[in-house]
């Protein structure tokens, strides 16, 4: 493929990845920001979202669009409730101590994964996309006759992929509106800034935590529902989103939502674009080392501001 169309394609693919990653990482970032805990089971909530989406879409039947819309609503909700319950039953009793929480969420990761294997099984299952037209994209070249357009081989996307990008933008805006403009957002931000004072002003911090944990997980699940029509629901699919979300949240600055979105776009896009030029495994090695070095030398993240 020529360089120009190749790049466009990498960007389009990167956008789709970045969209899903943004939602997933926003969930992780929110939980870290408000509760100051790292949720290692985040990837499993992503996986659960996909598996529930398959379950819902499959049991409803009828036109794919009906099942998909139902999954879009039910799966994140279910996952959110599950996660909130886990917070209430487990993490609350650990006082949300950061290190103990990490260990407990590692345990949760295994439990969720194993239960999914025992019930849903080891196979990957697809969810039929509600619509999926291939959209060829024209490219141009300069010939003797001047500028000419043509359709290069492989330069295309699908309507569903565009929908994923749009949906992620809408959901992202929704999260932003919620955080910046709503009462609930105010409560979350106040809790994030000063837990004790929030408590002294009547904010039920423990419930806010459970809600946040649930909401964070639901965001991951939403990302997963969007992605299952492209990929499949599989009980081991949570690993990569977790690692990538980690990377994004750290690069973006722990707890900063704006940084998270920026970093998700950066990482999602570069994942697509770097692999155009380098070995993808090498790209992953470099990305992991970059994250480690960012933590070592710039713990506030690339986009985070320096603590006073």
């Amino acid at each position, binding site marked *: 493929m020529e360089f120009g169309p190749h790049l466009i394609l990498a960007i389009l693919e990167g956008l789709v990845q970045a969209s899903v990653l943004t939602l997933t990482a926003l969930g992780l970032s929110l939980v870290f920001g408000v509760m100051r805990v790292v949720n290692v089971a985040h990837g499993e909530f992503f996986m659960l979202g996909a598996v529930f989406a398959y379950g819902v879409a499959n049991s409803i039947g009828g036109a794919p669009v009906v099942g998909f819309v139902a999954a879009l609503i039910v799966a994140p909700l279910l996952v959110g409730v599950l996660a909130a319950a886990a917070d209430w039953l487990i993490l609350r009793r650990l006082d949300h101590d950061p290190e103990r929480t990490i260990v407990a969420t590692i345990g949760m990761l295994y439990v969720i994964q194993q239960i999914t294997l025992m019930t849903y*099984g080891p*196979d*990957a299952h697809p969810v039929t996309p509600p619509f999926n037209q291939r959209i060829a994209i024209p490219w141009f070249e300069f010939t003797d006759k001047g500028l000419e357009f043509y359709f290069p*081989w492989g330069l295309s996307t*699908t309507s569903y992929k565009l929908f994923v990008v749009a949906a992620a933008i809408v959901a992202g805006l929704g999260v932003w509106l919620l955080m910046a403009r709503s009462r609930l957002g105010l409560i979350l931000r106040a809790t994030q800034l000063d837990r004790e004072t929030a408590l002294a002003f009547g904010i039920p911090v423990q419930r806010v935590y459970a809600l946040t944990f649930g909401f964070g997980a639901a965001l991951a699940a939403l990302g997963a529902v969007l992605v299952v029509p492209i*990929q499949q629901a599989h009980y081991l699919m949570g690993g*990569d989103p977790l690692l990538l979300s980690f990377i994004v949240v750290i690069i973006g600055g722990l707890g900063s939502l704006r940084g998270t979105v920026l970093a998700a776009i950066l990482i999602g896009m570069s994942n697509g674009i770097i692999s155009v030029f380098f070995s993808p495994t090498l790209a992953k090695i470099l990305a992991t080392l970059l994250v480690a070095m960012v933590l070592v030398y710039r713990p506030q993240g690339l986009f985070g501001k320096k603590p006073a």
Partner: protein
Amino acid sequence: MKPEKRDNVIASRRKVLKGMAAIGAASTMPGLVPFAQAATDQPIRIGFQVHRTGIGAAYGRWYERTTNAVAKYINDNGGINGRPVEIIAEDDGTDPKRGAEVVEKFATQHKADIAFGTLFSHVVIGSAPRAGELKIPYFVVSEGHHVASGMLNRWTLQPGITDVKSQVQAMAPFVAANLGKKVTMIFPDFAFGHDHRDYFSAAIEKQGGNVIAKIAIPPTETSFTKYFAKIPRDTEVLYHVMVGPSVLTFVKEMGEFFGPSRPEIFGFIDSLEAVDLKTPGLEFLEGTYFWEGNPRYAQKNQTEYDRFYRAAVGVDDNGASIDDPRDVSTYAHMWGCWETLNVVKAGMEAANYRGPGDRAALIEAVEAMTDMAEGRDHPQGAKIFNGRTHQVFGHQYISRVNGGRLEVVHRTSIEDTFYPDEVDYTKMSF
């Protein structure tokens, strides 16, 4: 016609389950199975290393179904040396560490006669040294080249399924002759994929073709379009092989990428194993070609043996589970379990196997095997076993997607899969 057949199979499946549960106690239930002339009525214990969890779990499920079916088949026909076969399954988590522990457990705890059944090559490589030390015959069904490459030991054999090196090189003449000579390869970036890369590149060059691009995809990748973009414009044939839970995404995105103007496409069915060809998004595969270890769809000229084998495992004419037509089997691989256990049976009978003391004799008996005739024991086709390399060679199938079904268009000769020996295990001591 069909419904009745189906009922039969369900009935026999029930019997399988019941039978399996009862096998331990079989000897105390006279009349159920005729194990009359046995010297001992103790069952032959087959340690079955199965991927129930981990990335191999989807394959493992079907391996287990096939293994249970072949055990029933053997028992229904009088067992081995008149003794029933008992399958002792242990999950290895598709993990080499646990694999080695499981082999130890078979050898020392379960007192199994042999260990059997592993698919994923890293588990084989992790487990084989322990099998060698514990001197327990280790029959793998992994299609990896690691056995014939000489990396392992005299106790490890692969008598049921042809290895990747053979499969791949046998494809090259057909590809070069019918599809094109400029090939782009897409393969997973780990050992299995590298075997494809290396052996096919060499084979196609012998046919006057060449590989113009080699695109490695990292394991755990979930999105593939960006790799397709690296396919050179002058590619005549796209050669693809993919494994893991993302195979459907891989194939779907391939379709979306090419749209209406695709090159010839030749793939290993691994890319679609356990995936329904009628899944939306796969329509573009119409007219493309696949290697199949064993044809998933019952062919017009289906042999009696394939029909028998299908029914025994509980698979319909489309290669899916009879219970659930959406549950597509790993048909191109799992027959290896069926044939391997039949080889074990033949070997044990040739060696007059009585117990662990005869393990070396069993190995020697299998090493002495050469021709294996097509039949109920070998429903996939005739085979030639090479005792020096511990590797079997057999026919390979090339199928074309036609009306949403895979139709066999070419069956390679066994000789197409031969290559010079790289090891002589028979010279090693036990």
